[in-house]
């Protein structure tokens, strides 16, 4: 790491109360968007010809997966930015997005499993799409475990950035796995291949999940900033104590 590395505590922008108020409002907007999108999807879409009402699980399964991919893209970009600039802020953004991405990936797998039981007859199978998604989850759970491994900020941030960048490389593999290998998971649908009602249900839920993901990352980033400031405050106090100031 160069001397230019900036590990100073991340300053909180604006008045904390005003920021908290804005995020609370954002949370209410996200909540309403999710409820509206799910009600629309559940009530408007007719039973699918092959899947029947099980098709409605797609409105939470697919947006959850897409939002996780976007979260991992944030990890990728923020990790490169950290290695490039050494700013603590980038590391904290990456860590926040990684946690939210891992959560959404776990939810995606669980929802897929609930859909798979009545459709394929099994809760789980070692299909390329399922397996590559499980690997993605394991990599980012490892990323989070790695962060708890060391107290040294620079080392933790550098290692995490490398894992975050390498971990993201699995996202295109997950996405294209249904085309590259023989799989029982269906290939990606396009607006031209599904009925408009289903497509709109998916679109509105995708937007709602994207808003949710952004809200979670921002909230998690606030927690991470405070914890980082706390670490720095304690370190500074110990340093002053050791020098008898």
């Amino acid at each position, binding site marked *: 790491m160069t001397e230019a590395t900036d590990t100073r505590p991340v300053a909180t922008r604006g008045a904390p109360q005003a920021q908290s108020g804005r995020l609370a409002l954002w*949370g209410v907007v996200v909540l309403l968007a*999710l409820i509206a999108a*799910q009600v629309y999807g*559940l009530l408007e879409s007719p039973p699918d010809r092959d899947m*029947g*009402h*099980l098709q*409605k*699980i797609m409105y*939470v*399964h697919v947006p*959850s997966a897409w939002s996780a991919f976007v979260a991992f893209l944030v990890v990728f970009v923020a990790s490169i930015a950290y290695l490039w600039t050494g700013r603590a802020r980038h590391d904290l953004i990456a860590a926040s997005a990684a946690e939210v991405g891992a*959560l959404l990936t776990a*939810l995606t797998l*669980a*929802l897929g499993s*609930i*859909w798979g*039981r*009545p459709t394929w007859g099994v809760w789980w199978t070692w299909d390329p799409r399922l397996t590559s998604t499980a690997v993605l989850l394991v990599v980012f759970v490892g990323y989070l475990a790695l962060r708890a491994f060391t107290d040294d900020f620079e080392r933790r941030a550098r290692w995490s950035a490398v894992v975050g960048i390498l971990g993201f490389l699995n996202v295109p593999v997950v996405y294209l796995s249904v085309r590259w290998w023989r799989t029982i998971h269906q290939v990606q649908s396009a607006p031209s291949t599904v009925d408009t009602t289903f497509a709109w249900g998916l679109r509105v839920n995708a937007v709602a999940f994207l808003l*949710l993901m952004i809200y*979670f990352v921002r*909230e*998690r980033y*606030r*927690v991470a900033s*405070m*914890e980082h*400031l*706390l670490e720095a*405050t*304690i370190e500074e*106090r110990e340093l002053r104590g050791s020098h008898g100031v």
Partner: protein
Amino acid sequence: MASEWSYVVGAYALTWVVILGYALRLRYRLRRAAEELAMAQPSSPPKREA
């Protein structure tokens, strides 16, 4: 065998448990971090000696 709707309801219930659970967890962590930070920081600036 369970009906289609039981799987649908189960999937949506799980989604909301995860969403609300994580939101509450973040709220708790935020409050705890703010409290710890307030305790760690000096309550008033040090007085200057005359």
